């Protein structure tokens, strides 16, 4: 397995790292408590994960770089392990219609992670009349609110399916 890139945290840009191809990335977490306001037991432990390229490489050729995967999973695991009550929410961005590709990529990263047995991952396709968004939550197996988290997450998707 390849090593993750070294990353640093700043208040300005979150967790940033630079790849061997001189591409800068940021990973960041934002407050997700508003999305689960009906669940005071755990809403304050919900964070939403984001990941973005900050700059482009000097050439435009897309490079296959598995170290990005290991770096992102390292950031996520460290965040999850910092507090067993943390719940990380993933919303596959729909802005460029690539949300399905992002879902496949994140699912692949999770399934190949050696430590995934320590966490629960729940996936839901959340569809309105206009669009579908692929959402997931990941939380530690020691999270004391395990069943309530699942209930809260499923309830959003279930309500949208109701006629």
């Amino acid at each position, binding site marked *: 397995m390849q090593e993750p890139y070294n990353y640093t945290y700043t208040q300005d840009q979150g967790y940033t790292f630079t790849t061997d191809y001189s591409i800068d990335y940021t990973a960041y977490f934002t407050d997700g408590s508003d999305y689960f306001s009906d669940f005071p037991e755990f809403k304050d432990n919900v964070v939403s994960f*984001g990941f*973005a390229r900050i700059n482009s490489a000097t050439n435009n050729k897309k490079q296959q770089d598995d170290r990005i995967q290991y770096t992102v999973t390292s950031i996520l695991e460290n965040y999850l392990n910092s507090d067993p009550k943390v719940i990380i929410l993933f919303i596959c961005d729909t802005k460029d219609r690539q949300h399905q590709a992002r879902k496949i990529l994140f699912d692949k990263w999770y399934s190949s992670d050696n430590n995934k047995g320590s966490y629960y991952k729940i996936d839901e396709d959340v569809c309105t009349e206009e669009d579908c968004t692929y959402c997931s939550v990941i939380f530690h197996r020691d999270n004391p609110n395990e069943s309530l988290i699942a209930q809260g997450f499923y309830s959003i998707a279930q309500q949208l399916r109701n006629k």
Partner: protein
Amino acid sequence: MKTVSSPNTSADKAKAKEIVRRMLNDKKILNEHISNGGKLKDLASKGIKVARAI
């Protein structure tokens, strides 16, 4: 045959739609902010709070 809906079903659905709408809108704001070189600490002015660091 007349069907009876569960109490508050349409209200619950509307609430769920609003939650999803907010998720997507926050995502859009974040993407634009980051791609424009914006700093995370400036997100508060756009209604988004950065979570604690570890």
